């Protein structure tokens, strides 16, 4: 579904990620893990079109999307949920969700799926997004992305700024979506959360992919354990 080859990208000519290659297959959940500053956010911003890569190729469902601007990629069925969330703070929950489907009319079925998943959003329907708690904002960001019925959901650190319980709840919601067949690519610093959720993963270190494998393989890998799980 998503195929990344030899991707390098960064800011003002200084590459932060180097020669990155990975794949995400249909109905899979794949994680990119790594410590702070490893280049995860840069990599994801490049995938979704907010940054232009300096070299390499990104294919989505067989089509070349390298260097295509974010607004066009979003319409192709690949939705990015940024760690910064980028909600519309002075607009209501309702308006934020409706905009997720833009330019199409929101499908009532999709709306009810989102509200079933995140009942809190229905409770706060007419409240401004800026007044929500961190966890509710994350739900809204995910919900807004889902409104377009994306085929691939790309999440940058969904647990950022969330209390452990809230972060776990967010992953439970993602699990429900996975069971419905949604393909997910996620970066995460809280590795155990991602490990419990994903089929496969890649370890990004200083901008390079150092390890890859199934979640079990990665978990078994001592390097991962010591470096990222804090277990020696």
């Amino acid at each position, binding site marked *: 579904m998503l195929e990344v080859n030899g991707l390098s990208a960064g800011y003002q000519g200084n590459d932060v990620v180097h020669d990155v290659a990975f794949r995400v297959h249909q109905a899979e959940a794949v994680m990119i893990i790594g410590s702070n500053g490893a280049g995860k956010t840069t990599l994801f911003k490049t995938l979704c079109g*907010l940054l232009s890569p300096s070299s390499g190729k990104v294919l989505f469902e067989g089509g070349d999307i390298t260097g295509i601007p974010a*607004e066009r990629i*979003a319409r192709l069925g690949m939705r990015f949920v940024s760690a910064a969330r*980028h909600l*519309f703070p002075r607009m209501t929950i309702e308006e934020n969700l409706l*905009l997720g489907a*833009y330019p199409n009319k929101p499908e009532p079925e999709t709306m009810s799926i989102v509200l079933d998943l995140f009942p809190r959003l229905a409770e706060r329907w007419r409240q401004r997004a800026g007044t929500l708690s961190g966890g509710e904002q994350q739900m809204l960001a995910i919900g807004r992305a889902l409104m377009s019925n994306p085929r691939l959901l790309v999440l940058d650190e969904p647990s950022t700024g969330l209390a452990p319980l809230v972060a776990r709840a967010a992953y439970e919601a993602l699990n429900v979506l996975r069971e419905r067949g949604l393909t997910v690519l996620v970066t995460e610093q809280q590795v155990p959360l991602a490990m419990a959720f994903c089929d496969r993963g890649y370890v990004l270190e200083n901008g390079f992919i150092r390890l890859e494998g199934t979640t079990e393989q990665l978990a078994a890998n001592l390097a991962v354990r010591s470096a990222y799980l804090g277990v020696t």
Partner: protein
Amino acid sequence: MLNLGYGQIAVTSAIAVALAMEAGIPILPAAALGLLIGGLFGLFLDLTILRPVYRLRGEARVLLSLLLTLGVSFIVDGFLNWRFPLKTLNLHIGGGAVEILGVPMRRGSLVASAITLATFAGLFVFFGRTSLGRAIRSVIEDEEGARLIGIDPKKMLRLILVLSGVLAALVAVTRSMVAPVDTKSGLSITVFALIVTVVGGLGNVVGALLAGIILGIVNVIAADFIGSYISLIILLVAAAVTILIRPAGLLGVKE
């Protein structure tokens, strides 16, 4: 982004309407032509001098847009004063005063107010209830967020410029029902627009309406009792006080 060429767009449209009417075109098509000219003026700004503005973010964008549109307004001002120094748009609506609740009102004021209120109602519905209106607001709220859900900020900014150009032209047309609009009216229209925007809260339609009504009343009373020059100073003081008390405007929300 702030557009200080607003008054000059209005004046340009007013001159266009006046010329069209001199050429024998009836008032309604002439006014429609004026709105078209206003919209095209906005489109022109979007396609030319605002290009570099869109590349900037935050404060730098506001400052550059302010300087560039001010420059354009000087050029337009100079051109209009050179070519049409005596041209005036005066859509005086005749007939005696109409009494409403015992207060005599000029017909021109009533028609202008009715058009303005209808336009505000239209804008309110457009921005609040239509998906295109919401998409425009989303770009004002968070440009990156808008891009991530498939909205192209450049298209929305272009729409805003065209729409504000049409509205500037509408200001010229309605204003000329109450008082003549000539090449020297540009500055006061821009200043009034700026004050109303600041007092109402940037990007707030209801706030702008409320501020427009309150400041309009203040303006008329001050002009009647004290003098029209002092009334402008009073308006500026009112705007300054609003910023001190409510930095985000009357109905603004702190971010």
